[in-house]
């Protein structure tokens, strides 16, 4: 063994050493635990409190969203997971389409959702939203752009004063960016939506891989305004960077965390219990704490009775719910289009 002794009820790291755990397929495991495939940063804290509460141990598999989806799909005929939790409803929907998610079950506390939250539940109830962020909002550098000149809406970024100084992420790389693109197309209509991005490109749009790169370009002054996930902007602002956030008036595409249960789960009860726990105010109160979720904690709660993080602006936002089914179907094609005509 590798020397760590098991301390029941503590974190995942103190599970028995690899050698100690015999080659038992998870499907036959009778122990009181279940497996969580997760790409959210809240995982450890929630697992811990859940364990304390229910004495059910959570086996966490925390890997990047892409790997997570690939793994779930590779396991499709013999799944090893009980609960999956990651951002991106479209990806979840694509798994759902293959019949990999438990449908038609609702958590006992489903009524606790805010109205916004309820909107987001798919009709077949294959997965549930856990928290909401803006797939993209506008951030500008307060040193470079005066408050009066600040963009108010997406279309403001086409103005000549933002020529060659707007940036966004590449949707093929950055998870949150696809809902943004899909949402824009949904809102403007496909042709106009594509035209919007082409116009942006004509105005000198830059694309970077992920949030931090794009944010960095803003902070260093290489760009004046960027379109990235709002939590990243809020996080930067909280740290004192010269950044201001703008939720465009015409509508902000949503990106929300989704959680689902495997229909083949052998610990269905525990899995369901965990989902209900995540949707409980008790768990959500931990999630809004930046010490637990770091940047992700600046999300918009959709559970009643949960205060959002004080750093998040209280202003009213016009949310745009991206059609998950359509978005999922068009995902590959749209990403390819974006990559071929905007990134290139």
């Amino acid at each position: 063994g590798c020397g760590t002794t098991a301390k029941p009820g503590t974190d995942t790291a103190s599970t028995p050493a690899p050698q100690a755990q015999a080659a038992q397929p998870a499907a036959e495991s009778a122990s009181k635990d279940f497996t969580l495939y997760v790409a959210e940063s809240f995982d450890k804290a929630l697992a811990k409190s859940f364990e304390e509460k229910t004495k059910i141990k959570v086996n966490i598999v925390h890997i990047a969203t892409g790997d997570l989806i690939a793994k779930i799909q590779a396991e499709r005929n013999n799944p090893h997971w009980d609960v999956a939790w990651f951002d991106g409803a479209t990806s979840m929907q694509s798994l759902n389409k293959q019949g990999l998610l438990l449908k038609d079950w609702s958590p006992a506390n489903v009524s606790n959702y805010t109205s916004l939250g309820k909107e987001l539940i798919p009709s077949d109830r294959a997965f549930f939203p856990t928290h909401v962020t803006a797939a993209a909002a506008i951030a500008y550098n307060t040193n470079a752009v005066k408050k009066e000149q600040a963009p108010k809406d997406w279309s403001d970024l086409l103005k000549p004063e933002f020529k060659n100084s707007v940036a966004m992420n590449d949707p093929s790389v950055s998870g949150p960016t696809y809902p943004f693109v899909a949402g824009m197309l949904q809102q403007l209509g496909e042709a106009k939506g594509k035209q919007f991005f082409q116009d942006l490109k004509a105005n000198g749009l830059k694309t970077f891989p992920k949030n931090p790169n794009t944010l960095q370009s803003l902070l260093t002054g290489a760009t004046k305004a960027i379109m990235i996930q709002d939590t990243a902007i809020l996080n930067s602002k909280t740290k004192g960077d010269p950044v201001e956030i703008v939720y465009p008036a015409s509508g902000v595409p949503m990106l929300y965390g989704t959680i689902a249960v495997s229909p083949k789960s052998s610990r269905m009860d525990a899995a369901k219990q965990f989902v209900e726990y995540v949707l409980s105010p008790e768990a959500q109160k931990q999630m809004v704490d930046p010490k637990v979720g770091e940047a992700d904690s600046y999300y918009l709660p959709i559970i009643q009775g949960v205060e959002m993080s004080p750093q998040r602006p209280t202003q009213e936002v016009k949310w745009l719910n991206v059609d998950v089914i359509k978005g999922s179907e068009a995902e590959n094609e749209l990403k390819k289009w974006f990559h071929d005509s905007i990134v290139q």
Partner: protein
Amino acid sequence: MSLKARKLKMSSRSGSMTALYNKSKRLLNRWSVQGLGSLPGLLLMAVLILYPLASLLLQAVFPHLFDMEMSWEPSLTSIAAVLTDRTNLIAVMNSAITGVCAAVVATLLGTLTAYAAWKSDGKVKACLQLSVWLLFFSPSYLIAQGWIIFMQNGGIAVQLFGLQAGWSDWFFSRFGLILVMGFRYFPFVHLSMSQAFAQLGEEYIRAGRMLGANKRVLFTWIVFPLLTPAWMAGASIAFAEGFGDFGMAAAITPHSHVPTITYRIYTALNQAPVNYPDASVLSAIVLIVTALALWLQFRWMKRSSYTLVSTHTKPMESKGPAWGAVWTSYAILLFAVLLPFGSTLTVSLWKTWSGGIAGSNWTLAHYAALLDTDGEVLAAIMRSLAYALVVAAATLVLGLMISFQMTFFQNKINKAMDTIILSTMAIPGVVLAAGFVFAWNATWLIPLHLVLYGTPVCLALAYMASALPYSVRLQLGAMSQLSGNLLTAAQVLGARKTRVLRVIVLPLIRMTVMSSFVLTFIHTFFELPASAMLYPAGQPPLPVAIAARFNSFDWPAGSAMAVEGMAVLILIYLLTHRWLRKPDGRKEAADNRIKRETAPLQTAERTRQTLHL
């Protein structure tokens, strides 16, 4: 007569000696009754590599093989789709161009460092060799991260030198990728060139000088053509690596606007809906192209059979190191080793990434996390350590047995093994790992209680699968240097196979055995793709933990873990190194037919060990 001189003389005099060894090796055939001895090795290969690989590649033709309801219904749509997509063609071209350019850069750098190492001795040489080996062993994703940390807007370079933001845009492009790849892969060229320089033979040059040739003529007519095979060997491996590179391209140039073939695989595997049939067709393309490159190079080497004629090289009359080359090499190594690792180390000492180099931002907190109460970091390190130890030991034993069988008993099975081993080296790690998921999670294994997927055993097997070919080739190289008579002598005295392996072969190739152990150890310790895909729930090994930090842009914490990992390795290296240097009478394993160093060319034959994302 000095012993050394006599030995040299002996080896030169009997040119027929090697032929003799080969003969006696052939004569040992009798030992393996119809090649039965090779069967266990083949079986192992099948379980470790062929079965998982087939599980994935078969999906190109049978896309529903692993559906909820398994079906052997064939479909060529994936193949047709992949092959008819123009972007794929462009991607292949892009990868080829990147690979070729990276190979050129690597060749230039590797030749220079090899030359410097050849021309120098003592501490200078040791320093050069050590740095190259360090780089050779380093996991690519760490190096890539190091470069990114340094070059990025707001990265260390900008802060250190007060550079304009955006100065490094050129770097995050194909150009930068080629540069980083060149700096990453030049050790392959270095190793094969070192060998070539050592074999070059002072007489070849002297003979030219005696005929009035000046330096230019000597170089263009004699040195250059004689070095060409080694160049080809090193460059073709650098090409193969560059072509099949997974992590570096993903890390450095995702927005380079140049799709590469591996990028296409990445998309197929990492974007919903994941398309395994497409991924397997694309992987097959990578496999074919890299195998083709290596095959062409082997063929070329064979055609110019003179490369196999080794000459009697007299020791150089040392006129001191070529300082120009040495300093240039130091500069290269500074870029290749110090820059990425230095950046990683620096960042690991920052409180936050955005805090930068400012005085208040320095902290040891990330290292203190090692001793955290929850012990997550420590546990991950211990876990990886355990995996690495077990896998390295098992790989070593199996690798020894297989290579022993392959070297001294030639039959059809062994020839097949050779092909399997060579070709598996061209498989991206992610692909092999995905294959493992399908192979060891298949429904037909459930009644057999053999669903290994999700257990530590499965992960360990995957580690072994990616390390074994490597280990076998390394030991094949060392064993081929052994005189068959050394074994025959033992056999005639009544020793059986296991005893010969244990008492004669093992001690004689001890250095190679140790270095292959270390190699597997390091490889396993930092292996990412298989770890991410296969780690048992709740028990993340170190690379997964590091990658998680990097993925959430917590560079300081991730870097600190990487540094801790490296520190563990260095510690182990120092311990084993000490132990290896233990003075004993065996120093003379270098008795002229047995090379003390592992045959670098064979080492360099390592292909496609994708350690990255």
